[in-house]
């Protein structure tokens, strides 16, 4: 395989993996902060246990998010040195600001929160979990502003000497609507991810009639937040669609498998393409819906892939400007399905609480809903990144011109296989611990570790 493909594979693998853990961190931080605040206000021991129990799951997940985040920052230079040279005047700033404003805050205060209980004033301990939640969400803002710039470059001029974009409007960079819509979509997705984890785990315990009071409260708050967050994710996504239609028409058309320009444009429920994924064979369509997704009305014209391809060849020179449609098309539909199911289920869970929920027969099936936001998160990320292909920076730089020129296939195979193995082992350890602590329940979370007290070790060495 060529270095570009290997570097893309590695970046895709490490990014999707990182983002598997991030949304839960983003959302769960707020939940734990709110639970601990309720404990602080009421001195109700149930809230204390809630904060400890969900906090334990938060910490197990947080660790992997942090360590895999370091890889992300390094990889731009390691694998994409030409990209880094090209965009350095602009893209480095939000990354540096992310570290300075957000990473320091979440890491320092997480340490204080974990080690400070009972040793520092209660108010300070409470403030520290809020600062962790704010810090991690702040970090999402800056990295999404950076990514927003790759999707929709703003605030720059091209330096005539080097041909590279130079920052000339920092304010435009940090108010890029693309980044802020991403932020809205992602923060809401984080809250939804945490909500569905809480719903699933609470249902597991309610079905077994353990800690009914604690898990009923958890279930209730997660159903409310989960419903609001899922609706917000949908609205953010819909706003995003209209923005994509204006700024990245090719991504829009490829999401819809819309080959030819239509007025108004229909929505494809099912399209079968040929093996290359770039030609349509047969499709089943709903009239006018794509126009709604793109412009918020049922009548507008949506440009098709063929038209845009012709335009781009004139504008940027010969080349294939069509993303891998089988990916954009299906990830969008999977994401939408998961999203609508989440809205529906959160609504049903909310209504179901009018009766004593712990007696409901269907509770034992609820843990499966934990998977829904994870599917949606992963699909959304793949969609937005692969929908930008062949560009790494929309309209300015192609992926094939961004890769580090000095790397050999062997270098890349070593790192790709190395990361894949290491990440695989970490995933096993994470799932093992998450499951163990989720099942063990709140009483175990008050302890250092589940099961028995540790035997003395190391007497042999």
């Amino acid at each position, binding site marked *: 395989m060529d270095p570009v493909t290997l570097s893309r594979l590695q970046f895709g693998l490490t990014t999707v993996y990182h983002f598997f853990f991030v949304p839960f961190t983003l959302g769960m931080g707020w939940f734990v902060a709110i639970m601990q605040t309720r404990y602080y206000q009421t001195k109700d021991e149930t809230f204390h246990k809630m904060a400890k129990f969900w906090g334990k799951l938060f910490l*197990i997940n947080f*660790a992997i998010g*942090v*360590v*895999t985040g*370091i*890889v992300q*920052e*390094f990889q*731009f*230079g390691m694998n994409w*040195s*030409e990209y*880094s*040279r090209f965009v*350095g*005047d602009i893209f*480095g*700033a939000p*990354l*540096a*600001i992310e*570290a*300075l404003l957000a*990473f*320091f*805050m979440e*890491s*320092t*205060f997480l*340490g204080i929160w*974990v*080690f*400070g*209980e009972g*040793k520092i004033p209660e108010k300070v301990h409470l403030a520290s979990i809020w600062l962790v939640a704010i810090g991690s969400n702040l970090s999402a803002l800056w990295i999404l502003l950076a990514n927003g710039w790759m999707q929709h470059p703003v*605030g720059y001029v091209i330096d005539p000497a080097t041909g590279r974009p130079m*920052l*000339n*409007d*920092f*304010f*435009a960079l940090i108010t890029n609507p693309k980044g802020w819509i991403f932020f809205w979509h992602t923060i809401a997705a984080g809250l939804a991810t945490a909500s569905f984890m809480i719903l699933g785990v609470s249902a597991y315990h309610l079905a077994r009639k353990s800690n009914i009071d604690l898990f009923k409260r958890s279930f209730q708050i997660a159903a409310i937040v989960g419903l609001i967050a899922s609706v917000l994710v949908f609205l953010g996504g819909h706003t995003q669609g209209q923005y994509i239609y204006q700024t990245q028409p090719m991504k829009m058309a490829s999401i819809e498998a819309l080959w030819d320009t239509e007025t108004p444009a229909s929505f494809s429920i099912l399209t079968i393409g040929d093996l290359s994924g770039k030609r349509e064979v047969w499709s089943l369509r709903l009239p006018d819906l794509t126009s709604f997704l793109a412009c918020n009305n049922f009548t507008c014209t949506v440009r098709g892939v063929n038209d845009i391809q012709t335009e781009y060849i004139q504008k940027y020179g010969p080349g294939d400007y069509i993303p891998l449609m089988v990916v954009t098309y299906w990830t969008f539909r999977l994401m939408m399905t998961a999203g609508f199911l989440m809205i529906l289920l959160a609504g049903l869970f909310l209504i179901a609480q009018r009766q004593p929920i712990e007696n409901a027969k269907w509770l034992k099936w609820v843990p499966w809903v934990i998977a829904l936001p994870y599917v949606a998160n992963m699909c959304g990320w793949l969609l937005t990144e692969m929908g930008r292909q062949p560009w790494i920076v929309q309209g300015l730089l192609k992926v094939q011109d961004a890769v580090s*020129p*000095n*790397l050999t296939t062997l270098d890349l195979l070593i790192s790709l296989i*190395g990361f894949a193995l*290491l990440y695989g082992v970490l995933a096993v*350890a994470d799932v093992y*611990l998450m499951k*163990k602590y989720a099942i063990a329940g709140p009483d175990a979370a008050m302890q*250092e*570790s*589940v*099961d028995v007290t*540790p*035997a003395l*070790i*190391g*007497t042999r060495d």
Partner: protein
Amino acid sequence: MLLLRLSGHETDPEDNMSHEFLQTLWFILIAVLWIGFFFLEGFDFGVGMLLPFLGKNDVERRAIINSIGSVWDGNEVWLLTAGGATFAAFPQWYATMFSGFYLALFLLLVGLIIRGISFEYRSKDPNPKWRHTFDWMIAVGSFLPSLLLGTAFANLVRGVPINQNMTYTGNLFTLLNPYGLIGGLTMVSVFLLHGSNFLTLKLDGDLRERARSASKKIYWVAAAAVVLLAITTYIFTDISTKIGINPGVMPIASVVVLLITIYFINQKMEGWAFVSTGLHIVLTQIAFFTLMFPRVMISSTNPDWSLTIYNASSSQYTLSVMSIIALIFVPIVLIYQGWSYYMFRKRITADKKSLVY
């Protein structure tokens, strides 16, 4: 006036904050970030490497981990900020170094990943084998970054093959030359000493005495390594032509400070021993960055192809914006991070009841 320029104005060449001044300022700022990182994470790495050797049982090992438990993650952010700041201020330096040291950085990342995970996961399961494994991963995950960063920094000052397009033309083995390895071993041994001094300061009882005797042994290795590095620096770098045979106050003081550490260790002056290894790290880094300046990547292929703060930097506008942000937020970070150390200033005893897991 500068704030007004944040929004859509062309850079004014008459501006009193000249480009050259900003380039120098950011070189210094990045140096400060590395110095902070090595000073703070230096003892974290040392403590990590010592963990399986000093802690005889589970409670002792937990006490050792807790000595850095609340701070190691915040300390590591200094590295991330140094990386981010290099990207923002000197994108060419970031691109050349990170792509050039590819496999070394891959191994560094592996080290940081397994270390970070182990701190969080080792006590989450009571199985002795589980804990034993994670303890060793902490040690390896602390050793690898120390070795690799020492090797990388020695190579930076020695010069590495870079062509006229600012692209590194060597491979991993290019870095494993004698001087690079001396740099790596020096960093490992100095961090071990810094870590054992820190533990002597931070722990209590039997563990404290064990850390002290570890310091006494490690001292001789570290002292020999530092002297060897100082001498070989005259052979492998351009110090004698750039600075002169007399290297100036900082490098001499850095060696002297390390050599007198043994006095503090023997006199049981724990605070001073820790300060002197810390000071040694700071002074060594100052000497390093002075020798580099104004270059950021020295080309051993052709000195004219070296990257400098002038040909590797961002535009004046980007540097001005970043300077304002750094000016506001660096002091805030320093205050709350300093405060977090103050809050956990108490010594830690290897007593199960008082330990946080």
